[in-house]
């Protein structure tokens, strides 16, 4: 099962490598990982997407909690949550595909950020599966390059992950 684990981490050098090291040392996989500062400058927020059986996920959250730099964490997939990822993609835009690509961007509610004679650079936000679908749909145009931000997310409702 796919799980999104959201972590409040001490904003210390080395904290990221402790998390990454834990995953490689214990053979857990990381599908995506994002980390950035929060409104509290002493804390970073990390969102990590991983896959595993319930037992593996239980071990992952226990092992993460054991790291001294981990302040708090929540497995977003345990309840209602919002998941977003940003995609930047550069595709070929020539001939018939120039119009078709534009239409696809509109259908998926993306934005074209940069235009040249032969290419579009497109921005799109959504959950990972939407971005996967868009990449699939536009691939016939010819993809030049893809950058994805990795998933970030929050629980729904009025509660938050705070110290």
């Amino acid at each position, binding site marked *: 099962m796919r799980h999104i684990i959201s972590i409040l981490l001490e904003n210390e050098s080395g904290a990221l490598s402790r998390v990454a090291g834990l995953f490689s040392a214990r053979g857990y996989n990381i599908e995506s990982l994002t980390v950035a500062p929060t409104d509290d400058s002493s804390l970073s927020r990390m969102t990590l997407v991983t896959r595993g059986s319930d037992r593996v996920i239980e071990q992952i959250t226990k092992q993460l909690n054991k790291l001294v730099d981990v302040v*708090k964490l929540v497995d977003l997939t345990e309840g209602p949550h919002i998941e977003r990822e940003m995609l930047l993609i550069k595709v070929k835009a020539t001939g018939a595909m120039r119009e078709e690509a534009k239409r696809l961007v509109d259908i998926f509610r993306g934005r074209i950020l940069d235009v040249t004679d032969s290419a579009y650079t497109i921005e799109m936000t959504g959950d990972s599966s939407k971005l996967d679908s868009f990449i699939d749909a536009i691939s016939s145009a010819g993809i030049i390059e893809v950058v994805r931000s990795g998933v970030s997310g929050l629980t729904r409702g009025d509660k938050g992950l705070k110290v």
Partner: protein
Amino acid sequence: MKELTGAEIFVRSLADEGVELVFGYPGGAALHIYDALYQQDRVKHILVRHEQGATHAADGYARSTGKPGVVLVTSGPGATNAVTGIATAYMDSIPLVVFTGQVASHLIGDDAFQEVDAVGITRPCVKHNFLVKSVEELATTVKKAFHIATTGRPGPVVVDIPKDITANKCAYSYPKKVDIRSYSPVTEGHPGQIKRAVEVLLSAKRPMIYTGGGVVLDNASEELTKLVRMLGYPCTNTLMGLGSFPASDPLFVGMLGMHGTYESNMAMHACDALLAIGARFDDRVTGDVEKFCPDARIIHIDIDPSSISKTVPVEIPIVGSVKNVLKEMMKQIKAAKKEPDAAALKQWWKQIDTWRNMNCLGYDRKSELIKPQYVLETLHRLTQGDAFVTSDVGQHQMWTAQFYKFEKPRRWINSGGLGTMGFGLPAAMGVQMAHPDETVVCVTGEASIQMCIQELSTCRQYDLPIKIVNLNNRYMGMVRQWQEFFYDRRYSNSYMDALPDFVKLAESYGHIGIQIEKPGDVEGAIKEALAQKDRLVFMNFITDQTENVYPMIAAGKPHNEMHLGPCVSPVDTDRELA
């Protein structure tokens, strides 16, 4: 307030933390600190001969006293040499604080002379580590390091200190306590969970209590002993737990696992309720996890939530300090309306006694060669089971665990998790430093002892009267045993060729060496060695090369598939060696 240098602050911090001994080895990046050590007498420094020895010595000190062991080494190779000892302590949850010198801050990342990323290299084998960024944070970091190393599930903490920070100055004050918002180990067990556990325990027909190093680490031997006697249930210890329950108590069924007793492993396999206390279901204990205690409802007490249900699913987890949980458990048992099922228990013990009567630790007592088991039995008798015993890793370690019957905790000092050859001698140094008037024995083999043999020089410098029992079978015995059983007797690289004359070697370091070649001389030699109260004695026992450790459960097999030794049931003893 008068300003002190970082080096002075460091040494003052150690003294104010209550550190008596630091095991270490100087070098460029640590020179300011060594200069500050020279100018005071509150903290004593023990100079080892290799940084691995420093970490093992501090580890032995910690295991035998319960206090944190402290190590000081320089940058680069000083730090890398310490890694084996740090990993050893990590695997057995031993509180160590290891200070590594580092090149000056402005040189970090430049591949400077004797620079390594000590924080990076040690990250996977420490509980936590720090790189000190300014002299102002030095004292607090030292305090944090000791706090983390000694609380919760203990473990080693590394503090990397760049050289410039030991020269910079600031005012000194050592914090009385530190608060780390992301670190607060649970100590009290959940009363509801304990209630469920008591219910399962008191309803059991074939109960079993399996306990590990956590009982020793939490100083909970007394509570464990009371609980086991209160219930009258059989108790087995892991390799790390030996001594936490008195081996002479009839309720004790011996060690369990790969080289555990027949009765403990069979009882594990047959039990219907298992109380695991401060043990981590290691693969050498569980064997095949699919067939582990197939009929048992499992209760697990551990301070580390990640130890629970890691390899074996547990029905009733109890997170908390072993000592606190056992106290609460006994309170609830006393208050409970129920009592253990006496009839079922009588039947259970009858069954266990038939297993016990197999005498699974039997060996050939008529042999003309020295049997290692005989040496250890004799050692146990002559020291009244009261010595501190360290070991290296291999056959001799297992025989010590089987034949030296430990009555008290913190007397059995060995590298259980990492299995570090070379551990025994330096660990014995730390134990002897902490207990100058006690008998400290290092049981080793001719392969292991050579991994840290240089520490014989440290033993001479500090007059440590350690008794070394070298079970010399001219083989890496455990490697040879596996090759005999599983590799069709192809003894690949397991023969220790070109061995030194250990007696002369000991003498050249200024110690006493004794060579023992006949069973009839064993007792006299050990007596002679024990009588030397002020000298290190190196006893070189030439033992039977063909002896194997029994019983044995092959890796990955279940508890009820044990190989028993030739003196228990007939197996082929006509073995050829290379």
